[in-house]
C-alpha cells in the first residue's frame, strides 16, 4: 500500500527524516514510536504531501506521489490537535471531505450519520465543535478523516491529549474499528502503551532513522538496542562480557538465554527477572526505595558496584526501604542488546 524509499527531509543542515525505508501492507496497522523530535510527524506530513521530500520516494499503491498535490493523494490525516473547522458544526466537519469529492447531498447525510454512529456520537451532527470535550473532538476528527474512505489513514498522536482512562478505552475501540473496516493505518505516537495496544507492527524511530521494527511482542521481548530498551522504560542496562550462557557484569554473573550474541555487549535485565534469594546467595543490595504499584511493588536496589537495579516483586515479598537483600537473575528476563542494531531485524 505505502512504500517509502530512502525518504529524506532536511530542516537546514539537519535531516529530520534520514533515508527512511518503510512498507505498510494493505489492512495493516503500523505504529511509529519515538520521542518528540524523532521525525515521526514529519514522516506523516511527507506521506500526505504537506512536506516535500529532499530525497527519496513516497509510493502509494505502487505509484510515485512526487507530482501529486496533497488533495489528490487520497490519504486521511488526523491531526494531533484535531484541527476541526471552528465555523462548522459536527456534521459540517465530517461531511467536508465528502463535499470535496463531490458526493451528492443525500448520500453525504447518510454517510455522516453512519460515521457518527460508528464513532459513538449518534445524533451529534448539529452540535458546535467548540463545545465538545476532548474525547468527543477526537471522535469527530476520526469520523472526518474516515468519511472519504481514504486508502491510508494516518493518525498523529491520536490519543495524546486525552486522559489516561479514556485513552485506554479508545485505543481498544480504535483497534477493533480499524479491524472491522479493514483500514490501512499509519499512526505515530510517543506512548509505547498506545503503540503496543493499537499496532500490528511497531516501528521505533530515533533522530530521523528507523532503529527497530517488529510486532509489539517482538519489540517488547527483544528491544535490540539500548536506546529502544530505555525508550520502552527499561532502566536495568549494564555493560557485560557474554560467554556461553553467562555474562560477566558489574552486578556479578548473570545468566543469559541460549543463543545470545557473544562478546562485549550491553545487557538488559527486566525488573520482573530480579528475584530475592536466600541470604548469602547472589548479589547483595541495599533497598533505596519502595513504590507500591498495585500488582507488584517496584523496588530500587543499590548494589555494591554498578548502576541501581530496579526490581518488580510481589507485594508480600518486598523488603522495606533500608533493608539489605540478596538477589538473583532469571535467564528468560535477561536480554543481550546490540547497540549497533544488528540484532534481528532492528534495521529495516
Amino acid at each position, binding site marked *: 500500500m505505502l512504500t517509502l524509499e530512502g525518504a529524506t527531509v532536511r530542516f537546514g543542515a539537519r535531516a529530520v527524516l534520514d533515508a527512511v525505508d518503510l512498507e505498510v501492507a494493505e489492512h495493516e496497522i503500523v505504529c511509529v514510536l519515538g520521542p518528540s523530535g524523532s521525525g515521526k510527524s514529519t514522516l506523516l506530513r511527507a506521506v*500526505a*504531501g*504537506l512536506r516535500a521530500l529532499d530525497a527519496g520516494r513516497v509510493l502509494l499503491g505502487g505509484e510515485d506521489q512526487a507530482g501529486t*498535490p*496533497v*488533495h*489528490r*493523494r*487520497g*490519504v*486521511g*490525516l488526523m*491531526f494531533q*490537535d484535531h*484541527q476541526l*473547522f*471552528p*465555523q462548522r458544526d459536527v456534521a459540517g466537519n465530517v461531511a*467536508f*471531505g465528502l463535499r*470535496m*469529492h463531490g458526493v451528492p447531498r443525500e448520500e453525504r447525510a447518510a454517510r455522516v450519520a453512519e460515521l457518527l454512529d460508528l464513532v459513538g456520537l449518534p445524533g451529534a451532527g448539529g452540535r458546535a465543535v467548540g463545545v465538545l470535550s476532548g474525547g468527543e473532538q477526537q471522535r469527530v476528527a476520526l469520523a*472526518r*478523516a474516515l468519511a*472519504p474512505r481514504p486508502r491510508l489513514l494516518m493518525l498523529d498522536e491520536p490519543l495524546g491529549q486525552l486522559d489516561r482512562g479514556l485513552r485506554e478505552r479508545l485505543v481498544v475501540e480504535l483497534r477493533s474499528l480499524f479491524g472491522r473496516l479493514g483500514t490501512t493505518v499509519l499512526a505515530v505516537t510517543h506512548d509505547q502503551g498506545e503503540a503496543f495496544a493499537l499496532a500490528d507492527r511497531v516501528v521505533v524511530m530515533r533522530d530521523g532513522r528507523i532503529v527497530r521494527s517488529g510486532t509489539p511482542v517482538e519489540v517488547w521481548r527483544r528491544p535490540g538496542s539500548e536506546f529502544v530498551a530505555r525508550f520502552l522504560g527499561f532502566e536495568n542496562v549494564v555493560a557485560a562480557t557474554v560467554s556461553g550462557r553467562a555474562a560477566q557484569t558489574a552486578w556479578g554473573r548473570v545468566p543469559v538465554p541460549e543463543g545470545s550474541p557473544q562478546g562485549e555487549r550491553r545487557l538488559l535485565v527486566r525488573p520482573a527477572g530480579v528475584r530475592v534469594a536466600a541470604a548469602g546467595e547472589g548479589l547483595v543490595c541495599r533497598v533505596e526505595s519502595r513504590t507500591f504499584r498495585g500488582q507488584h511493588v517496584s523496588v530500587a536496589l543499590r548494589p555494591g558496584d554498578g548502576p541501581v537495579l530496579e526490581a518488580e516483586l510481589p507485594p508480600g515479598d518486598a523488603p522495606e526501604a533500608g533493608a539489605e537483600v540478596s538477589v538473583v537473575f532469571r535467564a528468560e528476563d535477561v536480554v543481550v542488546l546490540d547497540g549497533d542494531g544488528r540484532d534481528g531485524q532492528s534495521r529495516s
Partner: protein
Amino acid sequence: MALPVAFFAVFFAWPVVSIVQRGLRPDGAWDLGAIGATLGRSDILDVLGFTVWQAAASTGLTLLVALPGAYVFARFSFPGKGVLRAVVTVPFVLPTVLVGTAFLALVGRGGFTDELWGLRLDASVWAILLAHVFFNYAVVVRTVGGLWAQLDPRQEEAARVLGASRWRAWRSVTLPALVPAVSAAALMVFLFTFTSFGVVQILGGDGYTTLEAEIYRQTARLLDLRTAAVLTLVQFAAVGAILAVHARTARRRETALRLVSPELTARRPRGAGQWALLGGVLASVAVLILLPLGVLVERSFATPEGYGLRYYRALGSLDDAGTFLVPPLEAVGNSLRYAVVATGIAVVIGGLAAAALTRRAGRLVRGFDALLMLPLGVSAVTVGFGFLITLDEPPFDLRASWILVPLAQALVGVPFVVRTMLPVLRAVDERLREAAAVLGASPWRAWREVDLPLVRRALLIAAGFAFAVSLGEFGATVFIARPDSPTLPVAVARLLGRPGELNYGQAMALSTMLMVVCAVCLLLLERLRTDRTTGEF
C-alpha cells in the same frame, strides 16, 4: 503588495511631499532656514506647546476616567452590559465635527449648562479636553478592557496563595500584564488628540489652536505655505515618533500571556465598594457620553416656538444667505455615496496590504506596516491641499472629479482595515488549511472553505469602520469637497460658521442625522463582533 504601495505613493506620499516642497522650495532651492525661522517664532512655539500640553492632558484625563471603566467592563457582569459597551464605542466613530458640535450644545453659548447654571466652557480648554475624553473613552476601554477581560484570574489567585495581599497580587501579576495595553492605548489617544482638528476648530475659537488647526489656518486663510510646510514636517516627525513607540509596545504586547474566555472572568459586583465603582462608572458614562449626545438631539428639535421639526425642514431648502449652493440635506446623500466608494477602496487596499503583511515577515514588511499607520497622524489638511495641487494634471487629472473625496477618505480608512484584518488573518491556523487539503480541497477551495468564513466577519467589521471613518472625515474633505456637493461634516461646519439660531439649529439637526447613521453602522458592527476577533480598535 504592489497595489497598496502604489496607492500610498500616489495618493499619500506624492501630495504630501509636493506641498512640503512648494512651501520649502519655492524657487528651486531648499529653504531650510525656514524651519529654524518658523520654529523660532513665539506664536508658533505657543501653538506647539499647547498642542503637546492639551494632548498630554487629554490622554491623562482619558486614562483617569476610562481605566475604571475598562475594569468594570472587563470584570463585572451586569444587565445591559453589551448595549452599554456598544454605546461607549459610538463616540469613537463619530465625526470630530459632530463631537465638537455636541459639546458646543452642552457647554457652549446658550448651551445646556449655560441655561441651567450660566456655566460656559466654550473657548476654554476644558471643553476641548472633555470632548477628547468623550471621543477616546472607547479606545481605552476596548484596548485595555479587552485584554483585562481575558487575563486568567487564576494567575492572581496563584499569587495570593503564595502569600501576596490582594493589592500586591494585582500589582505584581495583573499590572505588568496590563502595562503594554495601557501604554498602547495611551499612545493612540495621544496620537488622536495631538492631531485633533475638528474638535479644536469648533470649540477652541481663536484662543486655542493645535498644530493641525494652525496648518489649516496658515494654508487656507493666510496662504503661508512656508509656515504650513514646516508645521507639517514637525507634525510628521512627532507622529512618526509616536508610531515608532507604539510599534514597540505592540510587539511587546504580543508576548505570550495566558488568555481565557472573557465570560469566565466576569462576575457580579460584590460588596459596597464594587457597587459604588460600578455606579461611578455608569454615572461618568452618562454625564460624559450620553449627556452630550442627548443634548445634541434635544437642541435639534428645540426651536424658539417649542419642540418641532423646523430645523430639519429647513435643511431641505436653500437659505437666502448663500451658505450653500444646494439644499444642505443633499449632503446626506453625498456623504453616503462618498463613504461607500471610500469603503470599497479602503477594503481592497487595506485587505491586500494585510494579506501581504500576513504572508511575509521581516524588516521591510514591518516598515510597511508602520507606513500604513501614518495617514492616521499626518495632517489631513496637508493631504487635502496636496491633492488639489498634485492631482490636477495628467496622468492624475482628478481635480474636477468626485473621486477625489473618496480617495482622501479611503486613506484614513486603510489603517483601520489593516488593524482589524491583520490579527484575524494571522490567527488562521495553517494546519486548518492542511486539514482541508488532506480531505481533498485544492488550495483555492481550501482558501474559500477555511479562510473566507473566518475572515468574512472581520472584513465586514473593517468595512464598517472604514465607512464610519470616511463618513466623518473632515480635515481633507473640507478642502476638496466641491461647493455644490458638501459632505455632512463639511455642511455642519459651514452652518456653525454662520450666525443665527436657524443655522445653529440646522447644524444640530444635521449632526443628529450624522450621528444616527454612524450609530446604526456601529450597532451593526457590534452584532458581528466577538472579543476573540477584535483587532486594535
